[in-house]
């Protein structure tokens, strides 16, 4: 059994993960900053408190299953995996690069621990439905977690999946929406409105829990509610801030799909209490 981090420890883990994200993106020279930073706190709570996983034993039969339907937040996904021990942290320095093994979008073949490759939006919720269904069939107690984006909910397949999760009464399934209100072309409500989101999921027979997606007490309480709720799947709507914790990235859709320059990275990492040199050294050595 892995040790569960408490709220204070989760906060410092999330800080380290944000440093990883900025460092990876800086060396890659491309990639998705905004959503990686907005879903960091939820991801950290999942990997370091909520989930039953054994990163050193990938075939661990009783593992909880996790999927990121937003495949583009690989800076976050790989940081979580490296910090949890799936692979060495120095791999992060070659993210998106020819010599490295960390593809721009998650690839099952190259990164053990990724259960299903992802990158085309709208598919991960269905995958999670299948995994939850298979677990029910086996009468297995594991839980299935999936992280979705808010802009992603514009994909029709999401609602096919939402319908089926409730139809099959998948109370072992917990979805999270990283509700940062922004997507690559601008405000979600301007591009294609999804409001009122809670009502939509309630109409699809889901249990809906709405929280501040950066507040660990609220995140852990929501996950507990989801675990205890029987008969229907739960969606946690996490109100978040795109680019969270990097002042010039916060609430700016231009940071959805862009990395910081070296100069911007210096400012970002200073805000996160480190430097590119120091943090690179830390990753290279582990």
């Amino acid at each position, binding site marked *: 059994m892995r040790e569960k981090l408490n709220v204070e420890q989760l906060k410092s883990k999330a800080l380290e993960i944000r440093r990883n994200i900025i460092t990876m993106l800086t060396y890659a020279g491309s990639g998705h900053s905004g959503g990686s930073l907005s879903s960091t706190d939820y991801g950290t709570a999942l990997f370091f408190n909520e989930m039953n996983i054994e990163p050193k034993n990938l075939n661990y039969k009783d593992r909880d299953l996790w999927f990121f339907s937003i495949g583009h937040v690989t800076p976050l996904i790989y940081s979580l995996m490296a910090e949890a021990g799936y692979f060495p942290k120095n791999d992060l320095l070659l993210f998106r690069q020819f010599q490295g093994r960390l593809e721009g979008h998650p690839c099952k073949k190259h990164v053990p621990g990724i259960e299903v490759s992802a990158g085309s939006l709208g*598919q991960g919720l269905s995958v999670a439905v299948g995994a939850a269904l298979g677990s029910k069939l086996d009468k297995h107690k594991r839980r299935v977690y999936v992280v979705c984006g808010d802009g992603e909910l514009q994909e029709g397949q999401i609602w096919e999946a939402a319908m089926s999760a409730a139809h099959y009464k998948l109370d072992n399934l917990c979805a999270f929406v990283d509700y940062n209100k922004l997507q690559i072309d601008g405000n979600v409500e301007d591009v294609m409105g999804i409001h009122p989101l809670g009502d939509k999921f309630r109409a699809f027979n889901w249990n809906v829990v709405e929280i501040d997606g950066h507040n660990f007490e609220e995140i852990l309480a929501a996950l507990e509610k989801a675990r205890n709720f029987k008969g229907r799947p739960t969606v946690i709507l996490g109100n978040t801030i795109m680019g969270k914790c990097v002042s010039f990235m916060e609430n700016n859709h231009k940071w959805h799909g862009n990395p910081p320059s070296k100069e911007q990275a210096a400012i970002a990492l200073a805000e996160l209490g480190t430097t590119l040199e120091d943090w690179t050294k830390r990753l290279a050595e582990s």
Partner: protein
Amino acid sequence: MPEMKKTREGWGKGLVELGEVNPNVCVLTADLGESTMCHFFGEKFPERYFQVGIAEQNMMCIAAGLSVTGKIPFMATYGAFAACRALDQIRITVAYSNLNVKIGGAHGGISVGPDGATHQALEEFAIIRSIPNMTLICPTDFWETKKATIAAGNTYGPFYLRFGRENVPVVTNADTPFEIGKGYQLEKGGDLTIIACGMMVFEALVASEELRKQGISARVVNIHTIKPIDRELITKCAKETGAIVTAEEHQVNGGLGGAVAEVVVQNFPVPMEFVAVMDTFGKSGKPSELMEKFGLTSKEIINASLKALKRKK
């Protein structure tokens, strides 16, 4: 006339046999359980049979998720919806992840008949064989479809099986050997080779018999696995007979003919002719009327054979 039987019944019966020996086999359908004949499985194993409603993209990815938990998911819908509507899901979620997902594309080909062009899948070979990791099989008759279904269940990886709607001639039997990726000869011949798949195998046999009356000895080969294709057998046929005609119930672009041609031009170039749908959409009609109109008959295979022979040096 030989016995007539539906290929989709072979799929349905194959699923039941698999289900009996392997509790991990499950079946999904998108509101087409009866017409794809996977309802046989549903009646026998209701707890492992998932009706997902009219949502093929969702079904494809649910199957992917099931495979993560060690299940062997088979899904069935019409080929038009499996290979086209859910293509993105096949490419990224299923094939890129190399998951153990089996796709049944029913009602393939022009012989679907009166439903018309929308439902006449004629593009699946070209689409599916361009995707890495996929295995693509188009069995010829009831027995071969049943064997292909069972073989897919016993072999890891993403599979696409194409079968049809109509009763078609039974040209193999329960004991005919079946091996994924291995074609086989049904009729000896030295003047040319007719390579066919699906229901065109029977047309090829009829054509070969007619050609024999004209003093031409046409070898007939069944290539049920279009990917990975039997390069060795195709090259051998090119070397030994010096001309090849392919016959398929599919568009001429990128199908069996294209796959065979890729092998032939690389290994031993010989004249080739193609019997296929010539880059056009289908239409409503009786299957026999449509096979005639779109040139998918033994008569067309004979014409193509004579043409190929004329080009042979």
